[in-house]
C-alpha cells in the first residue's frame, strides 16, 4: 500500500467541514449582534495557525536535509503533504491583510492613519510600521517560503524519477538557504503580523515564542497524520523507533515552548513596567482561567504523558496527547490575537469554532490531496536504506 487513495467519504467529510466554516462566516455576517470584526479576527487566528503548521512541514524537511538526518526519510512524504498547504495558507493570510489595509477590519490599529496621527508611539514606529514597507516584507516572506516549499516538492518528485544524488545535494544547499532565511524572516513575520496588533508593546522574545508554538503544532499534526495512516495500513516502513523519535520531538518542543513562554512572562512580571505588562494584564485579568489553563495544558500534558519511553512508543496515547496539544496551541494563537483585537469581548462561539472546523477541513483536504498525488514512500533517496533500519532504544 504505497499509493494513498483519497476516498470520496473523506472528501465529503472535509467538504462538510468547509461548509460548516462557511456557515459560521454567514452566520457571523447575518447576525447583527456579531460584528464582522470577529470573523476577521478568527480568520487571522486560523490563518496563522494552519499556515504555521504548513510552513513547519517545510522547515522540518529543511532541518532533516541540512543535518543529513536519515531517520525521517520514510516519513518525508507526510511532511511534504503538510507543507503543500503553504500556498493556500499564504493566500488566506493575504486576504486578512488586504481587508486590514482597506479598513474592513481593525485588527492592526496602526494601519488607521487617524489613530496614528494622535499617537506618538505609533508615529515613532512609522519608519518600520508603514504600509508599503510592511506589505513588501509580507509579500517577500510569503513568496519565498511558498517558492521554496514548492521547490522541495518538485525536487522530491524529480528524485523519485531520476535517482542519483544530484537532487539530494541540491536540496542540502537549498535547505541551508531556507533555514537562514526562515530563521530571520519568521521572527520579523511574527512581529509584523501578530506583535503589531498590540502596537504599543514589544518583546524581543516574541518571535521565538511564536515560532516554537507553530513548531509544536506542526509536529503534532504530522504525528497525527502518521498515526492515522498507519492505522489504515499505510506507511509500513515507519516503525516504533520513528514514532519514538517523533514523540521525543513533541516532548522537547513542548518544553521549548514553555521555556520561552515563561522567560517572556517572568521578565515582564518581575520588572512590572506599565508599557510591558500592558500585554499580560488583559490576558491575566479578562481571560484568567482559559489563559493559564492553556499554559498548564500545553506544558503539563506532554511532560507527564510523554516522559517515559513506553508512552512515546504507544501510538494511541501519543495521538491523544497530540490532539490535546493541537487544541491547546490553537488556544495559544487565540490568545496571541484576541485580547489585542477584541479587548475583553473575546469569546469562543459558533463563529470561532465553526471557522476553525472550516479551516481544518480545508487544510486536511489539501493535505490529503497532496498525499494522494505521490507514492507514500520516496524512491531513490540516498539515505532511504538507513532510515528503513532506524533503531533506537
Amino acid at each position, binding site marked *: 500500500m504505497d499509493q494513498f487513495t483519497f476516498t470520496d467519504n473523506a472528501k465529503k467529510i472535509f467538504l462538510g467541514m468547509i461548509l460548516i466554516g462557511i456557515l459560521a462566516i454567514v452566520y457571523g455576517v447575518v447576525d447583527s449582534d456579531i460584528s464582522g470584526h470577529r470573523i476577521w479576527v478568527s480568520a487571522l487566528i486560523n490563518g496563522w495557525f494552519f499556515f504555521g503548521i504548513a510552513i513547519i512541514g517545510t522547515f522540518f524537511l529543511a532541518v532533516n536535509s541540512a543535518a543529513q538526518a536519515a531517520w525521517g526519510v520514510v516519513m518525508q512524504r507526510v511532511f511534504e503533504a503538510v507543507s503543500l498547504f503553504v500556498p493556500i495558507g499564504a493566500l488566506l493570510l493575504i486576504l486578512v491583510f488586504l481587508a486590514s489595509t482597506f479598513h474592513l477590519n481593525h485588527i492592526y490599529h496602526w494601519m488607521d492613519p487617524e489613530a496614528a496621527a494622535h499617537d506618538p508611539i505609533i508615529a515613532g514606529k512609522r519608519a518600520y510600521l508603514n504600509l508599503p514597507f510592511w506589505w513588501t516584507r509580507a509579500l517577500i516572506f510569503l513568496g519565498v517560503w511558498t517558492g521554496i516549499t514548492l521547490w522541495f516538492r518538485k525536487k522530491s518528485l524529480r528524485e523519485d524519477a531520476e535517482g542519483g544524488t544530484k537532487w539530494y545535494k541540491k536540496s542540502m544547499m537549498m535547505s541551508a538557504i531556507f533555514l537562514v532565511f526562515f530563521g530571520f524572516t519568521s521572527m520579523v513575520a511574527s512581529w509584523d503580523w501578530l506583535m503589531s496588533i498590540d502596537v504599543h508593546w514589544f518583546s524581543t522574545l516574541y518571535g521565538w515564542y511564536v515560532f516554537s508554538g507553530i513548531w509544536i503544532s506542526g509536529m503534532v499534526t504530522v504525528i497525527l497524520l502518521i498515526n492515522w495512516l498507519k492505522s489504515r495500513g499505510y506507511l509500513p516502513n515507519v516503525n516504533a523507533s520513528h514514532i519514538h523519535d517523533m514523540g521525543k520531538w513533541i516532548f522537547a518542543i513542548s518544553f521549548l515552548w514553555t521555556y520561552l513562554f*515563561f522567560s517572556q512572562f*517572568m521578565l515582564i512580571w*518581575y520588572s512590572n513596567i506599565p508599557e510591558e505588562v500592558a500585554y499580560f494584564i488583559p490576558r491575566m485579568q479578562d481571560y484568567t482561567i482559559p489563559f493559564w489553563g492553556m499554559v498548564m495544558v500545553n506544558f503539563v500534558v506532554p511532560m507527564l504523558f510523554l*516522559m*517515559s519511553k513506553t508512552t512515546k512508543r504507544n501510538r494511541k496515547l501519543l495521538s491523544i496527547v497530540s490532539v490535546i496539544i493541537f487544541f491547546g496551541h490553537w488556544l495559544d494563537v487565540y490568545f496571541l490575537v484576541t485580547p489585542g483585537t477584541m479587548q475583553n469581548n473575546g469569546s469562543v462561539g459558533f463563529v470561532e469554532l465553526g471557522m476553525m472546523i472550516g479551516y481544518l477541513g480545508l487544510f486536511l483536504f489539501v493535505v490529503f490531496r497532496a498525499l494522494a498525488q505521490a507514492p507514500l514512500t520516496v524512491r531513490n533517496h540516498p539515505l532511504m536504506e538507513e532510515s528503513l533500519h532506524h533503531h533506537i532504544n
Partner: protein
Amino acid sequence: MTRERFIYGLYDDDEKMVAGIKALQAKGIHVRDAYSPFPIHGLEDVLGMKWTRLAIAAFLYGITGLMLAIITINYMMIIDWPMNIGGKPNFSFTENVPAFVPILFEFSVLCAGHGMAITYLFRNMTLPGLPARNPHPRTTDDHFAIEISEKENTKFSKDDLWKTIDASGVVKVFEKDRITKFI
C-alpha cells in the same frame, strides 16, 4: 565486598560476538553480559536485557530536588529573612513563585543529573577508585567480550563451558573475578 569469578570469551569482531552469543544460547548457556567499545544495535535484545530503571530513579531525584528547593527557598526568602526585591510580595511563597521557578527548575535538574550519574556508577561498580570493570583492556579498543557465570549454568561442567565458548569463534577464553556487590 563480594567478588565473583566469571568466564570470559574475547572476540575480535562485533558480528562474531553476536553470532557467538546466539550459538551459546542455542546450546542452553546463559550469557549474562557483554562488553563492547561501541553500542551494538540489537545486542540487548539478543542478551535479553531488562530495560533500565535509571529513568525512574532520575524522576525521583528530580522530585526530591524540587521539594528540597521549595523548602529551602521558603525558609530563606519568606520565613527567615523576607527581602523586598523590586516591590514583589515578600511574605508569600505562592504569589512570588514565578521568581523562584528558575531556581526550582535548576535545582531539580542538578539533583536529577547528579543522582543519576552517581546511581549509574554505583550500580555498575564503576565508582572512582574501584578497579576497572571491563575484563580485558582491549574491550575499550577493538575487542569484544562476553561474560558467563558458572553458577547460572549449573547444567554444564566448567570444562564443558570452557570448551563450548572456545568453539564459538573466540580469540581467547579466560577467567577473572570482579566485584559484584558492595556488601
